[in-house]
């Protein structure tokens, strides 16, 4: 059944412990009728929970692109134009690429002869919203939408896909979904590229 195309998404599954309506902090502020001393205390004890710890004040929701040294794998809370050093470019390594270690890889997408496949340490499971991915090494859960799920399924059915054949994948997505955009190739290439495990990209020394 053909369904409407949505740009492929792969992101962390987000879980919040307590419901919004049970915000003790807010009530505490009201009770204390003072500044946010208590709030500060509560807010600062989140250290080294997987979350970007950079301290800039912006609060937009763009993916983290900052370059800090934290090793978190979660989206950044700060984001946007901040000039902190937050580690952006967090990759959910759902795909791996086999390539020639002797060849310098600047952009794996442009190379031929390299084969991408699903990361064997990931569990892929279909869900109503698309797919659920689980990193079995690091115990991290990911969400993907239907388009992303179809891309992963296509690669799995092909038992791996030559990078030069990504056009075939693009054609498949065109046939599978309604309303695909003009720049579908770019979108898919960018998505696949973003899912590759960086460490698998060998660089000639």
């Amino acid at each position: 059944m053909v369904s409407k195309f949505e740009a492929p998404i792969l992101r962390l599954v987000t879980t919040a412990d307590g419901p919004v309506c049970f915000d003790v902090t807010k009530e505490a502020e009201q009770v204390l009728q003072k500044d946010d001393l208590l709030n500060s205390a509560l807010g600062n004890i989140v250290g080294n929970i997987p979350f970007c710890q950079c301290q800039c004040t912006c609060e937009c929701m763009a993916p983290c692109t900052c370059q800090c040294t934290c090793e978190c794998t979660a989206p950044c809370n700060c984001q946007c134009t901040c000039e902190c050093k937050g580690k952006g470019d967090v990759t959910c390594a759902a795909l791996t690429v086999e390539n020639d270690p002797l060849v310098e890889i600047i952009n794996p997408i442009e190379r031929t002869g390299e084969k991408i496949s699903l990361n064997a340490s990931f569990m892929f499971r279909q869900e109503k919203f698309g797919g659920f991915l689980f990193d079995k090494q690091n115990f991290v859960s990911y969400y993907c939408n239907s388009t992303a799920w179809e891309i992963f399924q296509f690669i799995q059915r092909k038992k791996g896909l030559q990078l030069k054949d990504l056009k075939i994948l693009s054609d498949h997505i065109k046939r599978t979904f309604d309303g695909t955009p003009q720049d579908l190739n770019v979108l898919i290439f960018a998505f696949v590229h973003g899912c590759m495990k960086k460490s698998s990209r060998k660089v000639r020394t």
Partner: protein
Amino acid sequence: MSESRQISFLSAPIYVWWDITQQCNFSCKHCYSNAQKTVKDELTTTEVFGIIEQLKEAQIGFVYILGGEPLIRPDFSVILDKFRDTGIPLMLNTNGWFMNEQMGRKIAESSVKHLRFSLDGSTAQTHDDLRGVNGSYERVINGIKICRSLNIPKISCSYTVTSKSIKEIESTCELLVELGVDAVQFGPLAETGRAFAHPELTLSALDTQELTRNIGQSITKFGKKIQIYSVDGTYDRPYTRLAKKGLIKPDFMGCQAGRTCCCIDWKGNVLPCIMWRNPVAGSLRKTSFKEIWGKSPLFNNLRRHRGNEYAECQNCKYSDVCARECPLSPSQNTHSTNDRIARLEVLEKNTQIRQCVANSEFC
């Protein structure tokens, strides 16, 4: 139809707690599973293997093995082999008593990615008193040392915070840093299992505030060397804070039981949560895991939309992802209305807390 509306849940759990035995060599005062020295009618090796196959088929993310004391099972070694062969990653909890070089190596060669020791104090007096066995502290410390020298990806400790052990949080963090432990989880005593018989150990609202402060101070001091965190109820985790600011809409909010996780007990009963022994969603001796997860009336009830029950849920933008608070959290003093009010009253009246917060490193 609003009656049939459901909140977010997955086609199979991300993880399953599995109390693989109720047997234990300890008689801890706070044991949630009320572990015993001998237990009848536990799952046989064959039954365990059958369940592992079902969990593989269901494509769950990982299994967290607990007990009782898992290492007390004579077939534990072959169970580890079975998990490894089926490719299911494990988290394993132990009291450390039976840990030795041989067992450590077995675990290192298995699919255990995360090994967790139960440690309830930085001194033998505190730990052994809660655990009810002299020498248990020494054995668990020794077990940690053995395993740290082996190739086990992650080693952590879980620390049940009681009124007797609340003063040893910082010293425990210091100890665990020395031992090279990767993480420590602090969890307030939950009033379940054997803890019902020891109300003197339960944290008060004031204790909860002290706990929050102590953990925060420990993170400030040791947070770069060890991951320190607390289970739900002590403070909001990052995503919760963001959700409360309206910055994100989480995929799952509030109680996760029957939505992203569930529990299996030593007799093959499937339960919503490790802290919740009744009612039972189904028995794996009679029904498949897939069917219980998908069709159990109990799980479907946990996935119900709360709009018809709570006025504040009717138009809440989180109502399709939120199951509200843990229904079993009276000990955490932060969730039920009465306890929240009590906590706020403490906050208001206790100038000592305010002074302490004002002087803390957080400000």
